[in-house]
């Protein structure tokens, strides 16, 4: 096994906004009925005890996160070393149940977006058709959407910065978008 390589080798950009490609994180796509007690229990076991997120939300802990992707899809993020264990825990908890769990760690690229005041909000509002006003989008909110011409999802952390994921193949395009939108010039909308 070689040292795993991310799409952009940790590229960074500092304009008015700060953009950085984040290190790899373990990711598992989980599909199943969120009504199912078995799934809730299995996901709890696999995630190390995270609660189920509501629609448009993510439950975020120190090194892991559970994001709401659709009524029958969740995204579990956790340290890469724990992926195999989590998949096993899901398989055990869901034995005999209908579900799907598949690793997507390397299918994605991750970015952080931060800046003073409303800078990070404005970077995303230039690219995604999402209401990023403080009233509508705060820490713990998670949104699956598009960024200009590609699919993406982002969520807000407690400190007001954002993390964003997109498909690995378009990492350079998304980094380019974020840098352009992060060049500066406050809109002053929020």
């Amino acid at each position, binding site marked *: *096994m*070689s*040292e*795993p*390589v*991310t*799409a952009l080798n940790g590229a960074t950009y500092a304009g008015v906004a700060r953009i950085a490609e984040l290190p*790899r994180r373990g990711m598992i*796509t989980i*599909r*199943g009925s969120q009504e199912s007690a078995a799934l809730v229990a299995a996901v709890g076991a696999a995630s190390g005890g995270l609660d189920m997120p509501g629609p448009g939300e993510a439950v975020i802990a120190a090194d892991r996160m559970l994001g709401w992707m659709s009524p*029958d899809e969740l995204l579990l993020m956790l340290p890469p070393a724990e992926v195999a264990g989590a998949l096993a825990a899901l398989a055990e908890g869901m034995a005999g149940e*209908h*579900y*799907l769990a*598949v*690793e*997507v*760690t*390397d*299918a*994605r690229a991750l970015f952080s977006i931060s800046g003073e005041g409303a800078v990070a909000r*404005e970077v995303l*509002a*230039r*690219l*995604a*058709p*999402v*209401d*990023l*006003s403080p009233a*509508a989008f705060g820490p713990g909110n998670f949104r699956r959407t598009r960024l*200009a*011409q*590609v699919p993406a999802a982002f969520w807000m952390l407690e400190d007001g910065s954002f993390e964003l994921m997109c*498909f*690995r*193949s*378009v*990492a*350079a*395009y998304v980094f*380019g*978008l974020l840098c*352009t*939108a992060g*060049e*500066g*010039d406050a*809109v002053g*909308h929020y």
Partner: protein
Amino acid sequence: MSTRLAAGGRLLDRAKPVHFTFNGKRFTGVEGDTLASALLANDQMLMGRSFKYHRPRGVVASGAEEPNALVGLGQGARFEPNQRATTTELFDGLTAQSQNHWPSLEFDIGAVNAKLSRFLPAGFYYKTFIAPRPFWKHVYEPIIRQSAGLGKAPKEGDADRYEHFYAFTDVLVIGGGVAGLTAALAAAQSGAQVMVLEQTAHWGGRAPVDGGTVAGQEVSAHVDALVAELSGMDNVRLRLRCMGSGVYDHGYVLGYERLTDHQPEAGGPRHRLWRIRAKQVVTATGAIERPLSFAGNDIPGVMLASAVRDYVVNWAISPGDRTVVVTNNDDAYRTAIALKQAGLEVAAIVDPRPEAGGALTQQARDLGIRVEQGRAVAKVMGAKRVTGVAICPHAGEGAALETIDCDAVAMSGGWSPVVHLWSHCGGKLIWDEAQAHFRPDAERAPTGHDGLPFVTVAGSANGEMGLASGLADACAAGLKAAAAAGFDGTATAPEAEAPEEAPLLPVWLMPQGAGPALRMKAWLDFQNDVKVSDVQLAAQEGFESVEHAKRYTTLGMATDQGKLSNINGLAVLSQSLNTTIPQVGTTTFRPPYTPISMGAIAGEARGETFQPLRRTPMHGWHEKAGAYWEPVGHWRRPYCYPRDGETHAQAVEREINQTRKAVGLLDASTLGKIVVKGPDAGKFLDMLYTNMMSTLKPGRCRYGLMCSENGFLMDDGVVARWDEDTFLCHTTTGGAERIHAHMEEWLQTEWWDWKVYVANVTEQYAQIAVVGPRAREVLEQLGATGMDSQTFPFMAWEDRTVAGIGARIYRISFSGELSYEIAVPASQGLALWEALHKAGAGHGVMAYGTEALHVMRAEKGFIMIGDETDGTVIPQDLGLGWAISKKKTDYLGKRAQQRTHMTDPTRWKLVGLETVDGSVLPDGAYAVADGTNANGQVATQGRVTSTYHSPTLGRGIAMGLVLHGPDRMGEVIEFGKVDGSRVAARIVDPVFFDKDGEKQNV
């Protein structure tokens, strides 16, 4: 002449001079000027030439509706044509060029068209240049293009940056005049989030110029107070220089913000396109004054009365020493009064109303202004500048009673509400007889997803022309919009006072009985040179629909989209048709309200981010290796890797020979990979693929075809069964997203009760094909064990460790060679790729590209989606009957494939083709047959779908669809070439190489 007045100028800062050039000549204005006001201050009344007749034209308006004063602005990479001088804020260093003139603005050769104008009526081009047909393209059009057209296209790439911004609000108010601000305050006080867009750089709209008092103070002071109050509210966002461009379905509105047009060196994006979702929209877009149609109404110096007033009050411009005001309403008397108060002479007010006048008329009389009632302008004298007007009775045919010397004419034909934004999304209009204009019909507002109105109109945009009634209307509109957005509140409009006005007299032609000579000089559309006579001619020639008349005459089709000409034009049309104006109706109002920049529409989509470019984990390696790229969907795949001095053909040949003789590597990461899991997964795949997938054993792979419900082949690929419940479906490179969506659609809409989940894991894996007789040795060298055919046969998959990396290996072949496709996590892809290169070095391993892949698959007779298929081809056409299960009761496309057209024995079928002379057939060439078809064209009997030079066989090989092809083996048919010659090819088996599969099965 026009000059700057010694005092006044509401918007000016005279302490700050601003230098600019117009047609290369240096001028000076002051801060606060528009380009139009600065040119007028320098006596540059002549600002352009008209479109068709190249008539000299001066500025006629003071805002967005300006049809004449269009300039090319800036230079080089910042040049932009067709910019309105009236909405261009002056800045230091501005350069402007007038348009549509040659050789100069003062002396223009094209003006000869004006002398010929009686021979160039509406429809002239259609009638004259219709025959002979080829002449249009080769002779007429090039010449007409030279003499017509407005601005020139920029020649360089745009130096500026643009951006989009998505915003959401409860109430969006479009228009920052006194009505818009009043509506915004009412809505904001109700608790709604409010956004206000104003297209100019100033709040208050016309009110500060037109005057009146609100709550006991001057209206301008009231505007300041309103802005101060709104600025202090947390739930209000105010945007100047931001035009409401279009209103679309579901409360979607585009705003066009011009950030640095007035300060190009400021940095940052030049324009910002606001993409707004509003629960409710209030259009407070004001009204536009109409010109009057009299002879010579386009001569420089004839302006709208409101514009004259704006220039005097806002920019301290004297449009001329002596002005004649001609008006059918009281409002224009304000212009006469403003001129008089600025110390200028008003030669007369010409008013066609037999007896007029409310308080403003009286005030004008009291100021000593001569008021001529029941009179009209027979014609305006002058060429490049007004020199006087001839006065006549309005009721007559234009016999002049007297001539009044003057150097400016201020005209007013009444006011039309700006209904554009109301109308964009389906708001309907009603004809207001008393005010002679169309105004929004509140009963028929644009409606949203719930069938309820989402647009409310406020103030003069609603036909409420008075200050007091306008404010009351705006206040009510703000409350209504807030309530519809879920915020109930109360507010009352402040008391307002303005002079009472007497009713106007609708005047569509002046004088009423003007004869042909006058009508030919009475302009309706200044920009497109459409006159009263043209519209009348159109009616006479049977163009009864307003939409047809518009296109025939080009009325309202210029860059101003008929903001001044629309109502006047359709009034003339209705009179010519002897019907009423509402009967004729309006043309359609479409966004944008005024043209917006291409850059703003593109936003971030330019340069590197013009389009997403998808890269595999090995993309950088390919780039360094000098790959020649082929776009496949949004991916870039190496077509071949040319080495020093090689042509692409040579590179492809080298790559194929190496692979066939030893070993080659292909980056196959772009192939789609979709996981399908669940107890019903097998049943699901049996429906999606034409062949049986549910019988596939875990650990094995099977090639499958996917058809649309119409039976046509849409994708193919290898399916691997991972375990009892789980399959991995490989799709084509371009098919991954499409097929994933196809699966989801069937699962969500038709088979929602089937227990199947799918996930697109295409990008999780880097996939590398190791291909060639030495492939096994290379993998064994990297530590892979158990690779022998016994343990790991063809069409099986196994998990192995290769170069220390956990991999899933599929033993499948698209080349006919011994071949392994190795899937590893994308983060390990480059490492494996490099390890394979190192391990294979002894065998001369090299990467091969998509063209080598294509040639090798063609040598084996494998079809390619997109080459052998084009959306009209079914598997049966391609000899793929073996991949269609006879056992299954159903699969998508089965029924369609039983239709008579699909079972027709004359459908062209796939065969191999070998040229008799060994040459390569042209791609897409048709096989000729005897005789001709119904169109007199040579009959055909087939076509080439794939064609290559095969290095393995040393000759051209091709596949094609041919009539009765499989029954005609050995027959020689001819294919047409582009140069008219023909090439003979023999029909052969499509498998050219290793038909028994000995190489792949070793």
